[in-house]
């Protein structure tokens, strides 16, 4: 994307009907380290790559428990993500105070999207620079949603965001039809495989990733390092390769102006269509 005279203000439309500030916010999400979510009928697994600014520091927290039945993985400006997680926790607690029952995740996600939309229509605000993968339960089972800085939200069977997420998405696209009926263990395994794709050769260890699970009858929690390492060892010792071949991943970078973001393999970029209009 080029700098242009319509991109200073979030409340300025471009002649082509785009809000560039919102699109730039979505770029911030693509720059963050990868986060992946997948769901079956009764479980949701969230996984993310641990990124730390230096070897001396701890890694950034990217997965937040929002309530016993909801968790969120973020990618982008983690500070924005932290603030939104706090807001989500408040919403859940307030609902429980009034109704003594859990806020359905579908409703939380709509509230979150409405909050993001406000920031796209006030001259004194800026859009949140974080994408959220919200995994949670409601009456009809487990759900995974993606909340975007534009104020849009979508429900997914599986999704990946952040840098090198395209590799994970390709893996997930091949496998997602089986997820609904998947067992909890297989779902976690698929999450680890998908995460491995985003590492592109780096070794997958329990210190370089974080996995969290929520399910019917299972409160949201982050798996501890030993458990994760044991799971990784299980399939690495078995010499198991991700079943489909990565090399055949269709080349989607195309004639993209967004090739400027070198770290990311961009989704097809159509200069005439704003990314959030899908």
């Amino acid at each position, binding site marked *: 994307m080029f700098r242009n005279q319509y991109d200073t203000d979030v409340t300025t439309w471009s002649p082509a009907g785009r809000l560039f500030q919102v699109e730039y916010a979505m770029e911030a999400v693509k720059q963050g380290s990868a986060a992946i979510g997948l769901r079956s009928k009764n479980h949701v697994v969230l996984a993310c790559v641990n990124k730390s600014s230096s070897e001396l520091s701890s890694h950034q927290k990217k997965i937040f428990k929002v309530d016993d039945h909801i968790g969120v993985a973020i990618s982008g400006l983690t500070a924005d993500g932290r603030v939104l997680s706090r807001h989500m926790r408040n919403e859940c607690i307030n609902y429980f*105070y*009034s109704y003594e029952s859990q806020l359905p995740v579908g*409703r939380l996600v709509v509230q979150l999207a409405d909050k993001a939309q406000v920031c796209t229509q006030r001259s004194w605000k800026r859009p949140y620079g974080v994408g959220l993968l919200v995994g949670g339960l409601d009456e009809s089972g487990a759900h995974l949603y993606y909340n975007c800085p534009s104020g849009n939200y979508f429900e997914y069977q599986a999704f990946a965001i952040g840098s090198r997420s395209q590799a994970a998405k390709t893996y997930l696209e091949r496998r997602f039809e089986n997820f609904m009926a998947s067992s909890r263990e297989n779902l976690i395994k698929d999450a680890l495989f998908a995460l491995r794709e985003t590492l592109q050769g780096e070794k997958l260890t329990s210190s370089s990733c974080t996995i969290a699970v929520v399910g019917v009858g299972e409160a949201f929690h982050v798996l501890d390092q030993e458990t994760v390492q044991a799971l990784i060892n299980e399939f690495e010792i078995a010499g198991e390769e991700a079943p489909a071949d990565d090399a055949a991943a269709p080349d989607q970078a195309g004639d993209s102006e967004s090739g400027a973001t070198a770290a990311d393999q961009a989704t097809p970029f159509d200069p005439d269509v704003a990314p959030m209009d899908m």
Partner: protein
Amino acid sequence: MNSVDSKPATSSLIGSEADSQRTLYPYVTGTSVVGIKYKDGILLAADMGGSYGSTLRYKSVERLKPVGKHSLIGGSGEISDFQEIMRYLDDLILSDNMWDDGNSLGPKEVHNYLTRIMYNRRNKFNPLWNSLVLGGVKNGQKYLGTVNMIGVHYEDNHVATGFGNHLARPLLRDEWHENLTFEEGVILLEKCMRVLLYRDRSAVNKLQIAKITEEGVTISPPYALKTFWNFSAFENPTLGAEGSW
């Protein structure tokens, strides 16, 4: 407050600024509501009386109302406050339906919502002068609870308000059991309502029984109970003590 106050001891901390705006006593009241769980759901019973003090003034007051798809409410106490509560609940259910997302508020959620309203009003010294029974079924789970004007709330297999607590509950403690059929439940409730009719001065002989199951709500048309006055001691009442006193 500068107005000449007939109650000088009243601190302006109690209640809101305009004192005439807070509840001091009820005017038109309904008497007991009785509720039980049975095999398929919940049964509620209440008469149709609205008393104006000691006058049995209104005799067609519906005190049992459906709330959404999954709940039933019965109200005793100030009728206008019950009507106000129904407006709150109708708004609540409307907002819930507007989500249009397959989730809906069940009886437990409605009960808790009411409890918050009642307790918060009590804290402001401006209560909704009611005792409510809230029952319902959702996803096969039966729920029966009660909440009153001071915010006291609980759930049980059988609940009652007002005089029902003193006259009906003992009967229910003896005779209620799990898996009552609909017919057994109605007979049990009618037994309770009959005792209330004999002994509660605010009771009128025109009642409704409401049923809620997974399928939905049914509220019976009004009917009257048979009463039995051929108590042996009522015959020859002066036997053994002629004259008055």
